[in-house]
């Protein structure tokens, strides 16, 4: 039987209280959100925080709100809530696609958007989806809020721009009229982490790619993005040949590692194929041909 090492436990009553608790308890204190990454690590003693600060009671972080030209997704929004949100399905089908494939429905009832981004697992799905959407992370500390593009949020595996005495409070995603987005992932079995996955956002103006974002996960893409493929597409035709070429470019530039989920060449192939597929689907959605 695996049990976590001992720790002190505090329930935060507000974001400011959580920040004050993190400050008071020092570097060995951790925030716990859904706990579905942290608690398994604590059970295996891969993490041994001295203090846990529980932010599950912070309902103000658990809302999805439309704010003029963007949607603000609170850090404590559960995967299941993102999946069932009509606002998200309307503006950002990429998240609905992704959430159907993240973990399993029971884990999704507990795991949060903020926890996923802050865990910064190299195979984490939402980081790729938010990067494709060119979203912005909202981080709060004792001195107030600051914003960091999600593309600069990840500092490496399991490392983010959130300092110890700060909290990720929300992610802001721009609403782009006449755009489309999509996500696809290959998994070995239902509920497993990705062998490879890709997400895309496209805004097409008179047949030309006006805006594009391509996110990749589990294939060693820096910051979960494929900038070379984006560069190739931007300003060019939104054609099937271009999407195939963009897939080839993103496959060439990622750097997967071999593990129990597959060898390098297989993952590279998937990165390319999935990139092409999500670009096609995002394009169809931008034309209103697909929900």
């Amino acid at each position: 039987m695996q049990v976590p090492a001992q720790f002190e436990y505090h329930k935060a009553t507000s974001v400011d209280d959580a920040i004050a608790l993190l400050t008071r308890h020092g570097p060995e204190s951790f925030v716990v959100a859904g706990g579905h990454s942290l608690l398994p690590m604590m059970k295996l003693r891969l993490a041994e925080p001295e203090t846990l600060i529980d932010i599950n009671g912070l309902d103000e972080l658990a809302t999805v709100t439309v704010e003029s030209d963007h949607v603000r997704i609170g850090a404590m929004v559960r995967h299941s809530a993102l999946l069932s949100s009509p606002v998200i399905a309307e503006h950002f089908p990429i998240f609905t696609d992704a959430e159907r494939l993240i973990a399993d429905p029971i884990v999704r009832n507990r795991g949060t958007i903020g926890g996923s981004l802050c865990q910064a697992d190299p195979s984490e799905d939402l980081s790729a989806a938010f990067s494709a959407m060119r979203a912005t992370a909202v981080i709060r500390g004792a001195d107030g809020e600051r914003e960091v593009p999600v593309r600069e949020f990840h500092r490496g595996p399991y490392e983010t721009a959130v300092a110890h005495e700060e909290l990720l409070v929300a992610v802001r995603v721009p609403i782009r009229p006449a755009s489309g987005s999509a996500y696809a992932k290959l998994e070995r079995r239902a509920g497993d982490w990705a062998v490879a996955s890709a997400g895309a956002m496209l805004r097409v103006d008179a047949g030309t790619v006006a805006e594009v974002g391509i996110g990749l996960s589990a294939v060693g893409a820096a910051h979960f993005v494929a900038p070379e493929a984006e560069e190739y597409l931007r300003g060019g035709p939104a054609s099937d040949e271009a999407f195939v070429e963009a897939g080839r470019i993103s496959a060439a530039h990622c750097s997967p590692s071999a593990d129990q989920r597959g060898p390098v060449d297989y993952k590279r192939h998937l990165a390319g194929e999935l990139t092409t597929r999500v670009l096609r689907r995002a394009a169809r959605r931008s034309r209103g041909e697909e929900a």
Partner: protein
Amino acid sequence: MQITVSVNGESHVRDVEPRLLLTHFLRDELRLTGTHWGCDTSNCGACVVRLDGVPVKSCTVLAVMADGAEVTTVEGLAHGRTDADLDPVQEGFMVCHGLQCGFCTPGMMLTSRALLDRDPAPSAATIREAISGQICRCTGYENIVRSVQWAAAKEAATRDAADADTDSSEALA
């Protein structure tokens, strides 16, 4: 740390270590051993209980996180002690052989109950999706799906009968 947790409608006050997992709180502190524990990786779902109505893997929730919450375990599914008091989901598992060894069964039944509460007529695909985070090593899932469909049909029939009752009393009035 002192916590108060309502389990199957009964309030329990206990002094627990923060590291105690909800599974072990239920099994070891309250002796409700119907909630099973089958892995260390949050994968198997043998430990599923409802936390304020929502199915969760209780091995990945701290007991202290359930302070002030309402938990339903498999022991809370039946209304009493006879077969007639069983939840339709339990009846379905009995009638359709939804279990063999029974290890996965409590978690499967709680997830199924929660599914039927929000979707009274789920398709086979919806049922399979709902239980996709739970492992059964015996049944091949086929009979679990049938069991849930049986429960859904029974509840639909009960609702129809109740509606017919209201209709006929309205006709009389």
